[in-house]
Structure formats: structure tokens, C-alpha cells
């Protein structure tokens, strides 16, 4: 099943939209704008009707797998169900049709929602102040590192090293590099936790921060987190919490109580704003009181006359994105948190952890579990045994598609050979988990007896395995009109 490109549909002159007739004088373009500034030939955009457009994009949507169509156990991505009420809330005209530069007196509801979300996230994470500006988790990381650097500079210190575990998300080292810090990698011990003795050796007067995910990317809780915080703080560095895995611990423990000074949360993971096929997300950053003066501006505050956008933060790092963040995602997360409440969010973490441990218990006889449990919200298995039989983690991932499931995250974390990283989330029931377990067990059997069928997967997807090497070697990154393409 393939779908033509939108450029290959339609016919010259066809349009999918009607414009109102001009009610002002229809001045020719050339009389309004000097010819030297004008475009000489129109952009080669499609020429299609509205039904053409709807059918084309509907066909394309049908070639996607999504959380609404089935189980999506991508580790570290927290692909949970996104309640539909979130979408209704975000599309209310009072939120959808307000301009970011309107007078504050005309957007008091929006500001109040942002203020309350700052407070709610603070209570959930155990932090004193939040900025809602960052647009995604990685953006939050960079913002957090900027805050840490600005704080250290204000004390006359120039620390240029950021420590991150070798199991960390790729964004951690990339954010450190963007903040012009030198990355120092700390290893993992036999239990899948940060090697604390190595950490002790690595900290110095150059240490700006330790970036840590807890539970870590192996789905394991770092029990020694307080000792790590002590080591880093004594060396004069700060503790950064990557909130990608917060889904495991709500109502159970808070990063702010573990010794973290800065956290980012992924509203598109834990707080059910939909992933959108790759965003938009939102990555608010929370800090302890001593870092509040360094937050990006504006932050929302409550004043006598109402809610205001506070720009006056003398030590602020400045703005990190235009306006105030991904507001419509903030509305969705706020809606979710208010609906779930204290009881609901605690239940979320309990059910997520239960599901992950159940998968582990039912699969660890066939797939190696390199580290002892119990796990938190996700489990990392290794397909080393299956690889020896002729089916790699990649093959198993593709074969799962034939069984009607999305693949887990594979080859991450880098510390586990042939990693299959599975995060079921709390929104999957036992029936779904059992069906997934049966598929994984069947594939393990296939790998042992008939690995070709696994290696040739997927057999039922819209396309079979794609030639990624060719895509990189001969980049074809855009359609070109026929006359240009043949030139």
C-alpha cells in the first residue's frame, strides 16, 4: 500500500479553499510593493481540492500506528492513553483564540491556569518554583543547565563539567554540549545503578552538575541517590533530574526530596499530552528556592489585582522561547492533573510499576533480564540469546508488528547488548499485557526454530523493511517539480 505524494495529485488551477472577495480596494501587488521585492515565480505548492486533501491525509493517517489503535510499549517514552477531555479543554475558544500579547487583564483565566500548574508541578516534584517555557524535555534540560551555570557564575565559580551516566538519554550529553560543558560519563555497576565509587572519583571543582534519571533508563530506582547528591553537593555541583521517568514514582517519592536542585518534567509523557507523531510536547523546569532568581522570564505570579506575567527577575537567564511556552499543552496537562488528583496520580504509578514487573516476570525465562528487579515503570530485556539463534532485537521489534503491536525501544540503553526496553504504562489492562506476552513468547519460539520469519518481518505492514542505508547515502529529502527534477 503506497500513497502518491500530494504533489502528484490534483491539476493546475485546482484549489481547496475559497477566499472572501476583497471588501477594500483590490490594489495590484505591484502597486503596493516594489517589483524588486516580489517573488518572480510562485512556489510549487499542490493544486488540489478539499476532498483530495482529506482523502490523501486520511490514507496517510491509516498508515500510522498510534496509541489509540493499540499497545505502544516504547521504553522511556511513556506512551499512555491520552484522555479525550484534554483535547476538548485545549480547544475551548477562551484558550484557543487568545493572542499572546493581549493585555494581561483580558487573559486572567489563562494566567491563573498557568499559575496553578506551576504550583501543582511544584507539589508533585517537590520543587519551589517552575517555569513553563521550555517546549520539550531536551529544551528543559538546556534551560536547567543554563540556570545552573548562571547560578555558579553568580558565585564567581566557573565549572565546566557535566556528569551523566552511560545509560542516560542521548539528550543529556547533547544538552551538556550545547551548554558548552564538557561531558564526563559515569559507569553503571553490576546492579544497573550508577557506580557510586566512580562518581566519587569523578567529581571535582570543575563539576557543575550531575544529570540523573530516577528511576534510571534500566527501569531501576537509584537507592543511593541521596549519597550521590551529597557527593555532588560537597564538590560544589548541583543535581539535575531528568523527569522522563517520573511516571513511576508519583505519590511515592519526589525528586525534590531526593536532593535534586533542578528538574524538568515531560508533560507529553507523564501528564498525557499527546505525542503528536513527534511533538509538540512541553518540558517545564522546576527549581529549589535558591535558584528561583535565575528562572527564565516571564513567570506567572499572583498580585493584588490579579495574575501577572512577572518580567522583573534581576538574575534571570533571559527568555528560552517565544512567549510563555506551549500553552495548549499546559491546558491539557492541567486538565489531566486536576481530574486524576492525588489518588489518581498515585494509582498511575502503582499500576505502571505493576504492569512492568508483570511483563518481566512472564518474559524473563525466555529473554535475559540483565539486572535484578524489582523494576519500576519499565523493564529492559536482552535478546542476546535470540541473536545467537539468528534473530536480533531489531528483528524481534519488527516481528512484533506482525502480531499487532508497536515495537519496544531497541538498542537503548547502550549499556545493554541487544536491548529491548519495554514500558507498558498504567493504561494497559491485563488482557493486553497477556496478549503482548504471548506474542513475545511466540517470537522467542520462532527465533529458536525458524529465525528467518523473524528476520524477514514485518510481513503485514504497509511497507516491508526500508533501505535506510540508501536513504542516508543518496539523500532524497524533498519532492521537486518535474522540470527541475529532470534538469
Amino acid at each position, binding site marked *: 500500500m503506497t500513497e502518491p505524494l500530494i504533489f502528484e495529485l490534483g491539476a493546475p488551477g485546482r484549489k481547496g479553499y475559497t477566499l472572501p472577495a476583497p471588501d477594500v480596494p483590490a490594489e495590484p501587488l505591484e502597486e503596493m510593493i516594489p517589483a524588486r521585492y516580489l517573488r518572480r515565480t510562485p512556489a510549487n505548492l499542490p493544486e488540489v481540492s478539499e476532498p483530495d486533501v482529506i482523502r490523501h*491525509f486520511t490514507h496517510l493517517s491509516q498508515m500510522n500506528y498510534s496509541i489509540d489503535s493499540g499497545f505502544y510499549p516504547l521504553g522511556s517514552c511513556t506512551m499512555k492513553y491520552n484522555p479525550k477531555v484534554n483535547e476538548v479543554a485545549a480547544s475551548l475558544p477562551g484558550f484557543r483564540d487568545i493572542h499572546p500579547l493581549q493585555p494581561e487583564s483580558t487573559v486572567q483565566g489563562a494566567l491563573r491556569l498557568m499559575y496553578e500548574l506551576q504550583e501543582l508541578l511544584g507539589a508533585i516534584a517537590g520543587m519551589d518554583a517552575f517555569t513553563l517555557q521550555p517546549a520539550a524535555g531536551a529544551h528543559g534540560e538546556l534551560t536547567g543547565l543554563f540556570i545552573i551555570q548562571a547560578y555558579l557564575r553568580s558565585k564567581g565559580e566557573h565549572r565546566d563539567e557535566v556528569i551523566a551516566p552511560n545509560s542516560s538519554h542521548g539528550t543529556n550529553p547533547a544538552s551538556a554540549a550545547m551548554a558548552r560543558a564538557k561531558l564526563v560519563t559515569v559507569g553503571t555497576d553490576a546492579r544497573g545503578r550508577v557506580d557510586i565509587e566512580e562518581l566519587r572519583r569523578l567529581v571535582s571543582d570543575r563539576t557543575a552538575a550531575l544529570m540523573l534519571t530516577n528511576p534510571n533508563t534500566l527501569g531501576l530506582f537509584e537507592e543511593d541517590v541521596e549519597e550521590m547528591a551529597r557527593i555532588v553537593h560537597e564538590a560544589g555541583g548541583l543535581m539535575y533530574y531528568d523527569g522522563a521517568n517520573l511516571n513511576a514514582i508519583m505519590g511515592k517519592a519526589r525528586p525534590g526530596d531526593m536532593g535534586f536542585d533542578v528538574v524538568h518534567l515531560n508533560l507529553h509523557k507523564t501528564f498525557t499530552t499527546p505525542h503528536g507523531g513527534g*511533538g509538540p510536547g512541553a518540558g517545564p523546569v522546576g527549581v529549589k528556592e535558591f535558584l528561583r532568581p535565575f528562572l527564565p522570564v516571564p513567570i506567572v505570579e499572583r498580585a493584588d489585582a490579579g495574575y501577572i506575567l512577572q518580567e522583573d527577575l534581576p538574575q534571570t537567564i533571559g527568555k528560552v522561547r517565544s512567549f510563555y511556552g506551549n500553552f495548549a499543552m499546559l491546558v491539557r496537562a492541567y486538565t489531566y492533573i486536576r481530574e486524576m*488528583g492525588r489518588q489518581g496520580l498515585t494509582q498511575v504509578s502503582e499500576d505502571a510499576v505493576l504492569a512492568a514487573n508483570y511483563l*518481566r516476570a512472564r518474559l524473563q525465562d525466555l529473554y535475559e533480564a540483565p539486572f535484578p528487579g524489582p523494576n519500576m515503570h519499565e523493564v529492559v530485556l536482552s535478546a542476546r540469546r535470540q541473536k545467537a539463534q539468528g534473530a536480533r532485537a531489531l528483528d524481534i521489534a519488527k516481528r512484533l*508488528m506482525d502480531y499487532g503491536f508497536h515495537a519496544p525501544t531497541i538498542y537503548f540503553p547502550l549499556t545493554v547488548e541487544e536491548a529491548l526496553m519495554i514500558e507498558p504504562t498504567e493504561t494497559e489492562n491485563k488482557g493486553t499485557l497477556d496478549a503482548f506476552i504471548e506474542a513475545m513468547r511466540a517470537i522467542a519460539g520462532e527465533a529458536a526454530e525458524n529465525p528467518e520469519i523473524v528476520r524477514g518481518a514485518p510481513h503485514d505492514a504497509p511497507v516491508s523493511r526500508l533501505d535506510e542505508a540508501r536513504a542516508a547515502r543518496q539523500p532524497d529529502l524533498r519532492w521537486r517539480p518535474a522540470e527541475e527534477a529532470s534538469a
Partner: protein
Amino acid sequence: MLRAIGVPSVEDLFANIPEHLRGTLPIPDALSEMETLQLVQALAAENLNLAGRPAFLGAGAYRHYIPAAVPAITGRSEFYTAYTPYQPELSQGTLQVIYEYQSMIAELTGLDVANASLYDAATGVTEACTIAINATGRSTIATVGGLNPQYARVLRTYLHQEGFNLLEIPEEWVLDPEQVAAALDESVAGLVVQSPNLFGSIEPMADLAAAAHDAGALFIAVSNPLSLAILAPPGDVGADVAVGCGQPFGIPLQYGGPYLGIIAARAGLARQLPGRICGATVDGEGRRGYVLTLQAREQHIRREKATSNICTNHQLMALAATVYLSLLGKQGLPELATLCAQKAHYAARRIAAIPGFALASDAPFVNEFTVRTPVPAAEVNRYLLRREIIGGFDLGRVDPALQNYLVLAFTELNTRQQIDDLVSTLESLQPEVAVEALQSAGGVA
């Protein structure tokens, strides 16, 4: 499930969390869906939504009509509840959308290659500057007074925190290429110019690009992409990188986000681009298919050696833009841009004729322009708001010296009647009246 795991209770699964760290969740109790929605509706109702109202605010966010087919597609949960297309066999829909989006952006900007999207234009400018810094080995970015302050402030943050220099070239309404050329030297990695600029003026982009190139710097063109339907595109005027905010393409105002960060570059810079890029290839049976490609630039492969840390981007907004651009198409988009320009030019003529008001400059513009006001622009806005008109962008918020200047934006949603009402209201504004309005408004600005 507990029996299979071999523990007596769920609580035992949390045994690795030290007892003294165990805590509560000090947030309100759970609500039903109905109660939640009522609560959120009450908050929404406290905002003055602009639907159907006379509003003339732009300055980086524009109110356009959104065809019904756009939310019909972006509201399909096969798109909005999918993850990043890491498994291409199950993500051909999203991947083909990215390929079509990249193609449309390349066409509009006149450049060779676009990425899958960025967060917004502000971070797009910072990413473009990183490209320039890496490509030239230099460490100063030059920018001009006409750059949207939202973008300029974010750029300032990034450059300062990352230890680079910023050269801010002052600007009065429109740039003089010779003055800009004189300000550039061989420390400059990139020159960032927005056209139409904050004041609405179209900049002499070709001459500015030449000035940047003469200094050995890259030229980074920032624009409202709708204007590119009628203005010479960045690629034609010599830009190396183009950046813009795709919000006008079918994305609601929604109080500032999510919007769409557009970035495109000439072919030689493709491997310097940040974030995701989709490429066409074939599957085992030789059928056309799409994958994320050139991933050796990205954080999940290259970690600290990546060109950017961006992971989650703004795919759903890129989908909205792709659908919007398909609907408007080759003819509709220039027609729309022209219509907006006609509204603005009509308004400009009428407002310039009001005693005490004048256009700030005679530079050409598209759908946004700056007027000098007889009293501070903030007072004009308050006066208008009391008459249920949302005024323009008060330049005094950027520079106190410009407090008597107002930037007004016009789109197809502004009817002639609304414009005529704006004009008659401005005609009725006398300085004393405005002062009175100021005194009685009090409270929150």
C-alpha cells in the same frame, strides 16, 4: 499479576525507595471528568477570546481563518497519538507528511532542504546561529533592531549562556545595507535579519545578504512564511539559512504555543541542520517509502557530538501547516497574502490621514506597519480596549524611546467595517480623553 511477580502487594514493588523518602502528593483530590471540564471551562471563560472581534495584534502571532479541513486531519488520533516515527514500517503516514512538509518549505523558502520542524522561530534563530558558528569557526552573531523581540531575547540568552558574542546593530524602521556592511567584520559568523521586520518593513534582503557574504558570514533570513508567497524567497536573495514561524499556516493563536519553528538551508548545510529529517527510500520490494535519515547529526545517535539536543519537535503543527498549504495551494496562498496586504494598505492610507497619526516610515510593507501615535501607544491601546477593539503592538514594550509607536497587523479576518471602526475610534481619540482613560483604567495593565 502479583502472584506471577511473586510479591504479596504492590507496595513491595516500591521497596527500593528508602522509607524516609516516601511521601505524599499534596495536590487536590480527584474530580470526575464533568467537574474537571466545568472547572477548565470557567477558566477559559475568564479570557477575552478574539473570535469575531476587531483585533489588530500581530508581532509574531497572526489571526487567520483556519479551514475546517485542517482540524479534521490534525484531530485524527492516528496522527496525534503516534510517537516519533522511529519504526518506519508503522509510521509511513507521519513520515510521508514530513517529506511533503519539507518539500513545501523548501519551495516556499527557495532553499534546498528543510528539517521536520523546530519548537518556534525563536529557537529556530538560535539553531541557525549555531549552524553559522560551526560553519565559519567564528563566535559573533550580528543582528538588527528589526528582529522580533521575542526572537532577539531568546537569541541573547543562548549566546550569552553559551559564551558567544552578540553584535546588535540599531535600526530605524528599515536597514541601510551600507551601514550594516560597515558594522560587520571578520569576527561575525552570521547576520540575522527579519523581513518583513518587527515594524512591518520589507528589508533590502539581497543587499544585506551580499554584505554578510562580503564579511565571510552566513546570512540568516527570518520571515513570516505567508509573506514568502509574494515576496522574493530567502533562497533567491542569497540567504544560507531561512527561519520562520509557521503559525499563520492553520495553527491557532492559543496564547503563544505550540507554534511551528521552520528552518531551511542550502544543500551544503544539510548535515549541519538540527533535529529530524525525513528521506525517501525503497523497501525490500522496491516500493517507495520514507525513513528518518542523516541521523548521524542527532542526539540519540551522536549524544554530545550532535548538531543540537532537540528530540521531541513540533510534528503535529507541521502536519497542520502541510494540510493548510495543500488546501491554499499554489494560487490560494499568494491570493491570501495579497488580500492581507490590501487590507493593511487600505488601513494605512486611512490611519495616516487622521490628524496626529502618521506612518513611521515610507518603507514598503505587506500586512503589518507602524504608526506614530499622538499619545503613548499604551494609552491608545487602552482607549481602544474600552471600546472593545484589541489594538496593536506597543513598541514602548521593546524600547521606551518608541512609546509613541504602534504596530498594527491585518489579515483576511479584519473586515473593512472593522478597519473603518478602528479609524473612526482613533479619530475620536483626543489626548485628554486618553489620559482620562488611563486614569480610570487603573489596576492591571
